[in-house]
């Protein structure tokens, strides 16, 4: 399977299929037991390449995982300052820009506990984007949020599609995947079952099993 630069890939499949594990392996959060993943020519199997890969791939988590002791702004600026060793003032300016983009310009000084789920996740997206990653990994980013809050998060992701960042998103939002994905991967039982253009996947699906899954998820 190949993820081209700037492309949006949705990874679909039933629970336990290994979707999250796949993107956690790309981000070097989990060691792989077999095979290989290569990010910009560097293998995740190589210990020395880990930091480089983590700088190029940023993860947005299902449960947000914001740092509870830091403000929204500090959550965003921590890694760019400590890992990329960027100038604090520059990073803060960039972070304010990102918060503005996701509609949270006035909430930079709030702590995570003082934000709603949807707001926390948008901060989570800003935190990932502040690393200026080539590849953004989104792990079921809306599944822990109240339904009425998901729209605001999805809108942010939709705006990111087509900006040159490669998006790899694990999702259960079939309609959303249909709208923004260029490619769709379908996983089941730890294996890649199908990988094709979104158009082909949704409208000319040859596999009975996958069509049924997609139909079921629509409702």
């Amino acid at each position, binding site marked *: 399977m190949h993820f081209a630069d700037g492309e949006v890939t949705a990874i679909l499949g039933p629970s336990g299929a290994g979707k999250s594990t796949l993107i956690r392996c790309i*981000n*070097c*959060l989990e060691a792989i037991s077999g095979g290989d993943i290569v990010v910009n020519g560097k293998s995740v199997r190589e210990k020395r390449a880990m*930091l480089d890969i*983590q*700088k190029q791939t*940023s*993860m947005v*988590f*299902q*449960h*947000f*995982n*914001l*740092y*509870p*002791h830091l403000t929204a702004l500090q959550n965003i600026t*921590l*890694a760019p300052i*400590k*890992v990329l060793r960027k100038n604090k003032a520059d990073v803060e300016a960039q972070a304010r820009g990102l918060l503005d983009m996701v509609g949270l310009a006035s909430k930079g000084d709030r*702590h*995570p*506990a003082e934000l709603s*789920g949807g707001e*926390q996740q948008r901060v989570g997206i800003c*935190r*990932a984007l502040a*690393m200026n990653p080539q590849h953004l990994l989104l792990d079921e980013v809306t599944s*822990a949020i109240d339904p009425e809050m998901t729209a605001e998060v999805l809108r942010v992701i939709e705006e990111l599609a087509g900006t040159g960042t490669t998006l790899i998103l694990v999702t259960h939002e079939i309609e959303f995947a249909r709208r923004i994905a260029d490619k769709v991967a379908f996983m089941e039982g730890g294996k890649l079952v199908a990988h094709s253009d979104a158009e082909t996947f949704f409208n000319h699906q040859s596999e009975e099993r996958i069509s049924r899954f997609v139909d079921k998820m629509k409702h």
Partner: protein
Amino acid sequence: MRIDFSPVLARLDYLLSGLSLTVMVSLAAIVLSFAIGVLVATSRISRYRTVRILAAGYIDLFRNTPFLVQLFFLYFGLPEIGIPTEPVTTGILALSLTAAAGNAEIVRSGIETVPRGVVEAGRSYGLSALQVYRYVILPIALRVAWRPLGNAFVNLVLTTSILSTITVNDLTGNANNISSETFKPFEVYLVVLVIYCAVTFTVSAVVNAVYALFFARMAERPVIRGQAA
């Protein structure tokens, strides 16, 4: 027998010089025991088995033996194997080592409350193991551990009185001297009790102020929604 405070009050300067030593020893031991405690706590949950075992051994050793005996062992025992000892430094060392064992357990319980996902987030953006500890784990853990640590600090201040048994001229040491000089133990020790009380109240106040300053805003409510799953 008449109650008479005047012999004690006449020697108040001497008593207060003991107090200043008590304060100095307490501060040194609090800082040292905190630093060693954090170090031992992180070692206790290290990824290396040997480090974990050493830390656990240290904690068990100091928590399961009486402080007075530890103190005597260090002060009277070490010179016999050629290590000269001095009352104040040996006292500070013994206090710090014992208190550190307790502090380590408090800090470790704080570290164990840090949600896995938050640590993962730090790692995923490329923070080194040390940076994750410094900027993510410890601030969150210390918030939880701070009040129990405050209790430990108060306890430590009170325990400094035992150093008088190895000739340290702290508040208790000087009180003993005044008592045998004046034959007024009731008056002497009553005044000393009041002074200790004032010291520990001050320690508690400082602990609370530090909490209000650094930790209170962090999260009044339990954090990380959805993390319970």
